[in-house]
């Protein structure tokens, strides 16, 4: 395997954006490219992740080419998935030896619509989708399954939210943050029983942009390259009735294949849009009690659909580069009740 390092990362997340996706992307792409120390035409490959449903038009990603620079023509690809999977495609491309660097970006603007409702479109189109179960409700069913199985308690869920909102206070990109007690949070009303507002994702509009470079070139470009040491992604079956909703086996498998347990983890950045999912994932990843989870605040502090997974990976890389740890697991998850999961193990030089 070729060593690949994250050499630059930039993001923008706000609760409600006035700008369109291209206007949001342009300055962040510029920041990430400049931060890499490479000129735009020195970056060999470009790969992005987004969803047409957020912009409400087909081929919505096409216009983004204007914001990231695509003349002369570029080697480029796109996944209709979170940007974390775009990073995976780029990492594979670098492993072929055809390219040595890549620009990865993703964007999502969900404020114009009801995103929990829109995500009902990801269900079985013949039997599930026509009922329009929104994602908050599906996640509520998962949380209820966990409560009834005795796997989590509402107090633990509130503790997760409490810690996330506290961590978010030092994250300038968080859109929800604050210092609350567990009792205060438990006193709040349900949005969808047993989920309260703070148990649900802090939906935001935003973009993330990353530059990765292979081998010695990465060492020349930054003081402390953050290396991708393991990378894998897996998917569980779609029918919610088939799955044990108290488990997320594909997350455990992806982390295992990425080698997460091979050495000590200093912290993890994971995509858990609903508080109970963080508790499930902690178990799936076999995290020791002293491993810090989501120093960024995670999805309970800022959750830009299609971009949040890449955002977690970028947050982890920035933290390692700044000396806030040597080895971390970053995770992206998508689909109803986190059906599809991706794991990256990052290490500082």
């Amino acid at each position: 395997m070729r060593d690949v390092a994250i050499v630059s990362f930039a993001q923008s997340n706000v609760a409600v954006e006035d700008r369109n996706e291209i206007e949001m992307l342009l300055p962040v792409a510029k920041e990430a490219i400049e931060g890499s120390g490479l000129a735009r035409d020195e970056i060999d490959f470009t790969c992005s992740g987004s969803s047409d449903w957020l912009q409400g038009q087909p081929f919505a990603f096409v216009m983004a080419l204007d914001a990231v620079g695509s003349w002369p023509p570029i080697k480029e690809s796109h996944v209709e998935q979170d940007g974390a999977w775009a990073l995976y495609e780029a990492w594979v491309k670098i492993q072929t030896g055809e390219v040595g660097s890549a620009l990865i970006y993703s964007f999502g603007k969900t404020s114009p619509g009801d995103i929990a409702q829109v995500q009902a479109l990801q269900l079985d189109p013949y039997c599930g989708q026509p009922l329009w179960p929104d994602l908050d409700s599906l996640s509520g069913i998962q949380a209820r399954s966990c409560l009834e199985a005795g796997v989590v308690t509402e107090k633990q869920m509130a503790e997760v939210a409490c810690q996330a909102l506290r961590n978010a206070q030092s994250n300038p990109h968080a859109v929800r943050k604050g210092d609350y007690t567990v009792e205060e949070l438990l006193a709040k009303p349900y949005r969808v029983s047993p989920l309260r507002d703070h148990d649900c994702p802090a939906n935001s509009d935003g973009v993330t942009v990353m530059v990765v470079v292979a081998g010695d070139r990465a060492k020349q470009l930054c003081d402390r390259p953050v290396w991708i040491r393991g990378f894998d992604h897996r998917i569980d079956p779609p029918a919610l009735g088939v799955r044990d909703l108290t488990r997320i086996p594909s997350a455990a498998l992806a982390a295992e294949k990425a080698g997460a347990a091979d050495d000590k983890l200093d912290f993890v950045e994971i995509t858990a849009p609903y508080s109970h999912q963080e508790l499930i994932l902690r178990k799936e990843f076999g995290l020791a009690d002293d491993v810090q989870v989501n120093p960024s605040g995670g999805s309970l502090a800022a959750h830009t659909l299609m971009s949040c997974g890449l955002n977690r990976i970028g947050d982890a890389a920035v933290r390692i580069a700044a000396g806030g740890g040597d080895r971390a697991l970053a995770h992206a998850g998508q689909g109803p009740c986190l059906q599809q999961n991706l794991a990256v193990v990052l290490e500082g030089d």
Partner: protein
Amino acid sequence: MTQRCGVIGVGQTKYDAKRIDVSMPGLLREAALRALEDAELTWSDIEAVVIGKAPDMFEGMMYPENYLADAIGATGKPLLRVHTAGSVGGSTANVAISMITSGIHDRVLTIAWEKQSESNAMWGLTLSPPFSVSVVAGAGGFFAPLIRTYIRRSNAPEDTGIRVALKDRQNAHKNPYAHLKIDDITFDQIANSPMLWDPIRYLESCPSSDGACAMVLTNESLAERTPRKPAWVHGTAMRSEPTQFARRDAVNPMAGRLAAQDLYKQAGIQDPRKEIDCMEIYVPFSWFEPMWMETMGFADEGEGWKLTYEGVTALDGSRPVNMSGGVLSSNPIGASGMCRYAEAANQVRGLAGEHQIDGARKALGHAYGGGSQYFSMVLFGDTRP
């Protein structure tokens, strides 16, 4: 390239306007099972799955890969979903090929599909998003002015497009999977069909199809031990450029030219006109055959129409194009690019059936998308590169 890659299994569905006999998972399984059968493998032999389709709105689904995961044997495996506009069928295969050439996986299944009857692609293409201008004319409305520009520049005879359509519609009769087969099709029938978007006539346009295409890919050592002859990947290329800006030539796009040059370089092709035996290229409207022949370097600029006119691109010509009947005969949009790859692969495998070109040793697959701005290409050979 760390590893060589071979296509060892190809599967296509019957293409039709409405495949109401199968669900979406049923459609993908039909293609995937045929590819696995061709490769003499089973679902459990597959390590990773790469799928692709055009916009989700064409079926009204978000993240269809989630719903399809178990139907395509991807549960517990890596599943990637590619979307690069109309070129996606080709790009999806290219990404799957990179899973092999990187050495990450040994056996990969790739599937591309469209089930247009689930929704309405014409509607899906003409949505009017806020603060933007919609052309409200579908793909034909977008491409007609480019074709008109090509005719003006090249002085091509006005019936060139009709000749392309006649050839492809005749070829379709030799392809058991083709959607549109018009009995005893004639030049006059095409010439007299309604003008949809001047200069594009009804019978010079692709149909809307349901269908899926799948391929099984393996590494070098496994490809050498496969029951049927593999198609060896000699090169893959992708290029993208912006939709609109002043210096862009949308008729003969630089992205297409660069991708072709990159492909030939990887495959060690000095003169594509002499060394490539046949090709399957993305021609949704008849005139794109001569246009792409120029972009791909098979004719000088302004001369592409002569290849059609002189019969060079006919099934019995010296460089046949779209032996299967092409996109003009079957257009499951997201799969159309992979169909080109699959048909090109089967040519060098000697398994193309009635439309087989005798002795085809090098075959090219091509797809394009967006506003003629996304390009994906592959070159297959009958021997290991």
